[in-house]
């Protein structure tokens, strides 16, 4: 039989039961709290996963460290996050503080850095709880921070999470659980930051490559389209590439020259040893060189090649290539030569002009002075015969003056007037001149012309006429006096495209000393000469104009032979 309870016992049992019921609520709540804690930790790990996902999408370090700062708060559930980022190479440092009012930032950063400095750890995570005794002095209640993580040699990052005294009541205390989460988070940061930096470096390299490719395209375009020949060779000088212009200038195609050295097929025997040595020394020393060489094209044609060779080095300073730019400057070289020639001519003309002015002033002044003197004598003379003699002498001086002026005009005309071609008979021309000049001979002289055929020449008739007239008249003028066997014989013969004319006399002859100077302007070989000294000089200029030659052989006292070589059709000679 069950024991019957009295009312007091029954009430006590009721109260006990009541306590059990409510206590069951508190136990139930503890279970709920435990479940909630597990659930919440799952949430925190999900946030860690979310951080990973978001961080992996980022490209810039700045965005990443901002995300890190926010995620420290989100994942570790602290009030404050501090991230210190240092890029040594770029000399950049960044401090990110999250979860703090602006006005408190300086104080919080100062205290965090003080804690880190004081409690710095070589490795891992350090948790620091500040003593409550110093609460009034300290802004922070607790702080955990990582050792400095070096990402490669250039980048390092340090993370800290903290709670302030003011807000600490709202936040879970920093404990082992938060330390574990923080530790995992720090590892993730290290891994992802490393990825970002590697990706950045890769992007930078890609960018550099892309830029280099663009640059290369441009350079290729320039190299291909430039009018200069371009040769790219390896470090041994063996050709890797040439452009179109090179092919056009040299006649060699790319496939013909690949692997060959340019000197093997371009260098001419005419290239000077000095240029070859200069080039070889520079290439051996891997130095730039500029030189003008005479090269030979595939067809054997010689051309002047202005060559600039530059060695190319890679980023490590290793010599990898030579680039040569070549330019055919044959036209320029010819022009240069022409200029030099013209300059020489000008110099000669200047010299002649000086001589001419000197001579002309002398030769013109001399008869004038003579005239002036004779006129004075006439003024004072009372003798009619004397006066007549003076008049005769004045007439001679005037004749000399006129002769000089005519020869000057003839000389000038030869240099000014273009060569005019005409067909005429040399023999006829000489015979006519013998006839015209016969008045000079005071006594008999044998004048003959010999020709092996009808000497029809295609040349400048006026110039040839002047030329022959001067030479024949000289031969007549300078015959031996009182010699009745004097002769002037002209022999004409054709040799291919030229006529050879020998004007032979047995006159005074020209001394060896004078032979060298007889063609100079105003030079008189004979003291008996009444000439201007322009005759032979003009003859030489005429022969030059006609692209011919004039030669003189003479023996003093025996006679002279002048040989003319005149091209038939002188413009083509």
């Amino acid at each position, binding site marked *: 039989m069950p024991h019957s309870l009295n009312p007091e016992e029954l009430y006590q049992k*009721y*109260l006990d039961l*009541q*306590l059990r*019921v*409510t*206590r*069951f*609520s*508190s*136990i*139930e*709540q503890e279970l*709920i*709290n435990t*479940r*909630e804690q597990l*659930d*919440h930790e799952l*949430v925190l790990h999900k946030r860690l996963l979310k951080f990973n996902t978001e961080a992996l999408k980022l490209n810039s370090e700045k965005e990443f460290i901002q995300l890190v700062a*926010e*995620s420290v*708060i*989100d994942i570790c*559930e602290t*009030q404050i996050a501090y991230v210190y980022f240092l890029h040594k190479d770029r000399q950049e440092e960044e401090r990110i503080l*999250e*979860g703090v*009012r602006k006005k408190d930032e300086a104080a919080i950063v100062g205290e965090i850095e003080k804690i880190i400095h004081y409690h710095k750890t070589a490795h891992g995570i350090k948790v620091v709880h500040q003593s409550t005794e110093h609460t009034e002095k300290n802004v922070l209640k607790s702080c955990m921070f990582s050792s400095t993580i070096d990402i490669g040699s250039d980048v390092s990052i340090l993370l800290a999470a903290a709670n302030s005294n003011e807000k600490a*009541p*709202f*936040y879970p205390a920093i404990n082992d659980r938060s330390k574990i989460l923080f530790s995992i988070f720090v590892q993730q940061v290290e891994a992802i930051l490393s990825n970002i930096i590697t990706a950045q470096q890769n992007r930078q390299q890609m960018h550099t490559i892309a830029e280099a490719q663009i640059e290369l395209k441009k350079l290729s375009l320039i190299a291909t389209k430039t009018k200069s020949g371009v040769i790219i060779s390896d470090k041994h000088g063996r050709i890797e590439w040439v452009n179109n212009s090179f092919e056009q200038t040299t006649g060699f195609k790319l496939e013909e020259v690949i692997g060959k050295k340019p000197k093997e097929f371009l260098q001419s025997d005419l290239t000077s040893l000095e240029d070859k040595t200069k080039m070889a020394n520079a290439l051996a020393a891997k130095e730039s060189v500029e030189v003008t060489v005479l090269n030979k094209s595939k067809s054997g044609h010689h051309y002047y090649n202005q060559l600039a060779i530059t060695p190319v080095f890679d980023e490590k300073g290793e010599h990898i290539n030579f680039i040569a730019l070549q330019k055919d400057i044959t036209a320029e070289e010819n022009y240069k030569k022409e200029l030099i020639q013209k300059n020489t001519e000008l110099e000669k003309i200047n010299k002649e002009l000086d001589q001419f002015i000197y001579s002309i002033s002398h030769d013109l002044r001399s008869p004038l002075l003579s005239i002036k003197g004779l006129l004075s004598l006439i003024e004072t003379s009372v003798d009619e015969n004397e006066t007549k003699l003076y008049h005769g002498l004045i007439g001679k001086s005037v004749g000399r003056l006129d002769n000089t002026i005519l020869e000057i005009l003839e000389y000038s005309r030869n240099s000014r007037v273009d060569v005019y071609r005409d067909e005429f008979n040399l023999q006829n021309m000489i015979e006519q001149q013998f006839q015209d000049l016969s008045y000079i001979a005071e006594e008999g002289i044998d004048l003959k012309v010999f020709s092996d055929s009808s000497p029809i020449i295609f040349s400048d008739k006026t110039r040839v006429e002047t030329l022959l007239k001067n030479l024949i008249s000289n031969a007549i003028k300078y015959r031996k006096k009182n010699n009745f066997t004097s002769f002037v014989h002209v022999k004409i013969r054709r040799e291919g495209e030229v006529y050879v004319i020998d004007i032979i006399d047995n006159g005074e002859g020209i001394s060896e000393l004078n032979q060298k100077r007889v063609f100079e302007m105003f030079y008189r070989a004979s003291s008996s000469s009444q000439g201007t000294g322009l005759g032979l000089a003009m003859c030489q200029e005429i022969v030059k104009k006609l692209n011919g030659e004039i030669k003189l052989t003479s023996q003093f006292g025996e006679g002279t032979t002048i040989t003319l070589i005149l091209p038939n059709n002188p413009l083509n000679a």
Partner: protein
Amino acid sequence: MLHFYSSSTRMVNTRRGVQECLESAMGNNFHDSDLLIFHASIGHDFQEIVDEAAQLAPNARIVAASCCGVVGREGVSESMKDMALMAVKGNEFALESCNNIYGHNSYAKTLEMAKKLHAAKPGINMLYFLASGIDVDNDKCIEALEEVFGEEVTIFGATSSDNMKGHVSFQAVDQNVYEHGAYVIGFADPSLKVETQATHGFVAIGEPLVVTKSEGHIIQEFNGNPAWSEYLNRLGLAGKEADCVDTIPIGALGEKLSPELSKEYGNDHLLRAVTKHDGEGMHYATTISEGTELWLTTRNEDLIFSEMDRIVEEITKRMHGKNAVAVFHADCLARGRFLFNRIIKEELVNRMQYPFYSNSECPPWLGMYGFGEFARLGGKNTFHNYTTALYVIYR
């Protein structure tokens, strides 16, 4: 005519959180908003919230309150970094606020606000009230508001909280942040109506704790014993270093309701929370008279769900097919993550939101997990604890 827009987010950076809320709620038109009501969990800096909001919407009046988590159209979030916003366009409203409101001066402070509000805007037909959730006599607040606006004007709102530590709660008005403040918004759009209702789903158990000594809203003794010790003893927490954070989830105190109110409420008891104690003195949420019987309670999950469905059904019935234009929602923080796991909680929120959808869209929704809720009961404005309270504004 007033227009409502809402958004919520979880973001560590406060200023960016404000910006995101404004952009999500109003697109690019947030500069033109007239009133911004923020709820944010305690990890955010409230000065930063109002500063950033003032910068982005320079013409808007701004209020903010701390809480343990938020509920928006986007769902539930209970973390240290939640933020939710109800943005309002239109000028048919007035706002008043006060600082240093406590249990002993709740009536006077609220009365002063109510008078100013009444003078500021004629035609106010509903009041959104928010006060500190710690050491405030909420019955006195209701009394003061009703004295000016009459009993027929619906008072809805909540009391702010921290993350259930009972340490501090924040209220912000324009550029000022308070720890013991309150604000009241009077809506004066005649086209708008509001329906409110609260439910808790707890069941009273055992013998009541009888208040044998009290002063205003502070209980000093239960059953002739020091109140806090007796309370912990009954909760099975005696001898432990327990504080409000431990008692709030399991220590709801039930006041017996009349049979009529019980029927409307779906429960025999109206619940009260203790959010602070000074030694043995327990800070009750309303004035408490000696002799009052207070029952400990235990949660009943089935009841929680069935009651939720019931009040939503009753609210929608009273709306007569009209569309909700905004829903304010206050939930007890003890009904948050300390009561349900996330899945159940989200299901619960979904069941309270879905019936108000229009064109497959949830209306603008601003909910918070706080210390207390205001909702009408028996035709009167009433303060509640441990409830889900819905305030559906419709036209």
